[in-house]
């Protein structure tokens, strides 16, 4: 199948479908599996869907002519074609074709020659056979998750960076989760995942979001998933799966990525105050107002004391509002808050930031990236004032 798709660039869709049909007809296994593999490959295929102006123009000519004939207004001079008289279909077709200047056969084949069947294959994103099977197995699970209201993930030994990445995918998919420690294994985390409205409505609305999150779970070294699947007239089934299934994720890992500006900040800090070290592998913090917060960076003092730093960019208006609300309601949080100045264009948010007691002590503004000059005074203030650290 992959060979057929790879060789299809330049062909029309109909030809590609005929070729895949030959492969599928000879496929010894379940036909549904074959069609599933075909679907995944089609998703990686780009077709030319642009409108063809020359065909639109041809259609306009043809329909003007056929309409005039049907209304008895034609200049073609089809004598019998008057209201109340019978005309043979062949005679009518010939009259239209004669007016357009091509044969009836040509006219009929060109008339709707830009339907999807005739679209040209522009490209195909190649993949290995093994990759296709992993993608297929992943899609099988995703198909079941579409029919779920929620799912629970147990993570026995996730690192902070991996967990943070998973929660980024979670936020990106507009999901929420309750995180708790597993009773039996203190190190294990339990994530109960659903959507904002799930607490009011029993709904599979977030099924698509859960399905989209699944490949991100596959990045975890060890995981257990459990979800209630409702299929076939709402019958309930339990889906249980763990890392032993061996499915490989097709999502990108971005654990090791450190933005350039943060590398720069780290260098500045080392240069100006060697007593603090900046790392991106921040742990999560327990806050009131939200179960956990995943700051972007961690600053570690030579004494072993640690303070986290969370940065809010242009696209973080809503989370910033929420975070300030939570921080203002508690006195001690080992967290520095950086706010991109572009967020201050939002007057309501600007007022919230300006009036936040927490921000006035442990917050700072930045333009492109945080600078050491802004952070150092806050670190001093924090060391002096905060008694209890992480």
């Amino acid at each position, binding site marked *: 199948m992959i060979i057929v798709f790879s060789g299809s660039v330049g062909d029309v869709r109909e030809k590609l479908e005929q070729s895949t049909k030959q492969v599928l007809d000879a496929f010894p296994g*379940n*036909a*549904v599996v074959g069609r599933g593999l075909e679907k995944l490959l089609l998703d990686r295929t780009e077709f030319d869907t642009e*409108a063809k102006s020359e065909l*639109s123009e041809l*259609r*306009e000519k*043809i*329909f*003007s*002519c*056929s*309409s005039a004939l*049907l*209304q*008895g207004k034609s200049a073609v001079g089809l004598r019998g074609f008057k*209201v*109340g008289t*019978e*005309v043979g*279909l062949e005679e*009518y*077709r010939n009259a*239209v074709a004669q007016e357009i200047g091509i044969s009836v056969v040509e*006219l*009929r084949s060109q*008339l*709707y020659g830009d*339907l*999807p069947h005739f679209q040209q294959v522009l490209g195909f994103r190649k993949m290995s056979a093994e990759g296709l099977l992993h993608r297929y197995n992943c899609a099988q699970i995703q198909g079941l998750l579409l029919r779920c209201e929620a799912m629970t993930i147990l993570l026995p030994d996730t690192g902070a960076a991996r967990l943070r990445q998973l929660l980024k995918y979670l936020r990106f998919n*507009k999901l*929420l*989760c*309750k995180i708790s420690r597993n009773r039996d294994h203190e190190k294990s985390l339990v994530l*109960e995942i659903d*959507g*904002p*409205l799930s*607490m*009011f*409505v029993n*709904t*599979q*609305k977030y099924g698509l979001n859960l399905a989209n999150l699944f490949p991100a779970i596959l990045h975890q070294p060890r995981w257990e998933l459990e979800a209630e699947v409702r299929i*076939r*007239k709402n019958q309930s089934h339990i889906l249980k799966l763990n890392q032993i299934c061996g499915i490989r994720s097709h999502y990108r890992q971005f654990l090791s990525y450190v933005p350039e500006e943060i590398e720069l900040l780290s260098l500045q800090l080392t240069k100006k105050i060697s007593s603090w070290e900046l790392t991106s592998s921040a742990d999560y913090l327990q806050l*009131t*107002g*939200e*179960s956990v917060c995943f700051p972007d960076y961690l600053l570690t003092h030579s004494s072993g004391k640690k303070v986290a730093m969370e940065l809010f960019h242009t696209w973080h208006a*809503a989370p910033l*509002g*929420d975070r300030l*609300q*939570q921080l203002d*309601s508690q006195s001690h949080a080992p967290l520095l808050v950086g706010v991109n100045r572009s967020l201050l264009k939002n007057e*309501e948010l600007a007022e919230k930031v300006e009036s936040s007691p927490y921000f006035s002590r442990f917050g700072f503004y930045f333009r492109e990236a945080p600078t050491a000059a802004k952070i150092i005074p806050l670190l001093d203030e924090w060391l002096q004032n905060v008694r209890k650290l992480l």
Partner: protein
Amino acid sequence: MKLSLHFDKGTILLYGAEEDQLALVEDVDWDERTQCYRAPAADYRRLVTTLREQKISFQDHARKFSVETFSLKKKITPRSFQQEAADAWFTEQRGVVALPTGAGKTILAVMLIAKTGRPTLIHVPTIDLMRQWKEVLSEYFDSPIGLLGGGINDIQPITVATYDSALIHVPHKGNQFGLLVFDECHHLPGEQYQFTALGSIAPFRLGLTATPERADGKESHLYDICGSLCYEVHIDELSGRTLAPYQVETIEVEMRPDEREQYERARETYTNFVRKARVNFQHPNGWSIFLRKTSESPEGREAFKAYLLQKKLSQASGAKEEFLWKLIQQHRGDRMLVFTQDNEMAYRIGRSFMLPVLTHHTKLPEREAFLKAFRTGEYPILVTSKVLNEGVDVPDANVGVIVSGSGSIREHVQRLGRILRARPGKQAMLYELVSGDTGEYFTNQRRRKHRAYEGTSVLPNQSGQNYSQINQSGSS
């Protein structure tokens, strides 16, 4: 801390709420996930009303709209039933109005948008309808009309959105509109579409449809999220006055001998397999079981192909095409819509008779050009599968031919509705072509169970005459 309301992804967050205050409001729950109180966005009106009644002061950061003045460019003189519907809706400023196609639902919405004076989001099922609404709204309102859907994201105080686009945007924009209008609102209780209503704080809601009833009985859910049915007029009550008088003629078309032979052979292969595999279509999962079993063996695959072939032959026989040609000639001078069950048949007719075909494959500029040419009379015939079933205004169509269709009552009533816009002296005519002595007979029987078809012609029986009797219905 003072109580404040915030909009969050289709819900309302309540910060600073005291226990005794919360005891007074319904549907607010503690959210363990985010450690704060949360309520569904659709409860905004009730929540705010209760807080005001209880004299609990609060800061409203959830609402991002205010009162607007929408002045009308043209005066509207409503028909009596439109005025009655407007009055009935305005009592609660929520509710569903059921009016037949052509009875002026859009004008009713224009009246209510102007009177309500809040930013309004109008939901429509298709891009064609989105464009059509924009045209009408632009005729009446001075302010620019926004669009959300078909690749356009232009939000204005009055915006028209497809249900699909509105669903994507409601988690972020569900607090920007005070009035929601749901055109063809029978779609709203769908598993996904309901969240366009549940995820919005809009206190005012208007549902418009010709047929609120749903096969799954979920119309009660529609009334929960949009307001109850506050006004209803049936198609036969307006026929001959606001709607054109109409006739429905059902024609049994005999297949050609070669098609009949092919049909019988395919039908036999299919039914033999069903019997051998013991598939029971009376069982709730009968169809899924059939599909699964046909995919498990070469014999099953042949049976599935045979099933498709016999269905295709009954829906799209060459004999039907020949009959359609007769009707086209008989109705020269009329404006005809030809409906088919699928795109394949629509394009077959288009190629065969060299006619414009409108399906979801038709690109936007061409769709607009086809509809315009049909409206002006330049094109007397338009062939379509399903895209014209709903709402699109083709006022001059007076003849409809259903070459093939599903068993859906709604689809059937909507197709009839397409040819009923009143014009002086207009007599609408709907033909249904049914392949004689095939499974299509039962499909036809299922879809006619509506009062719009009461008293219209019915097929005598499966082996009945070729040409059924015409009965008139709905004429003045």
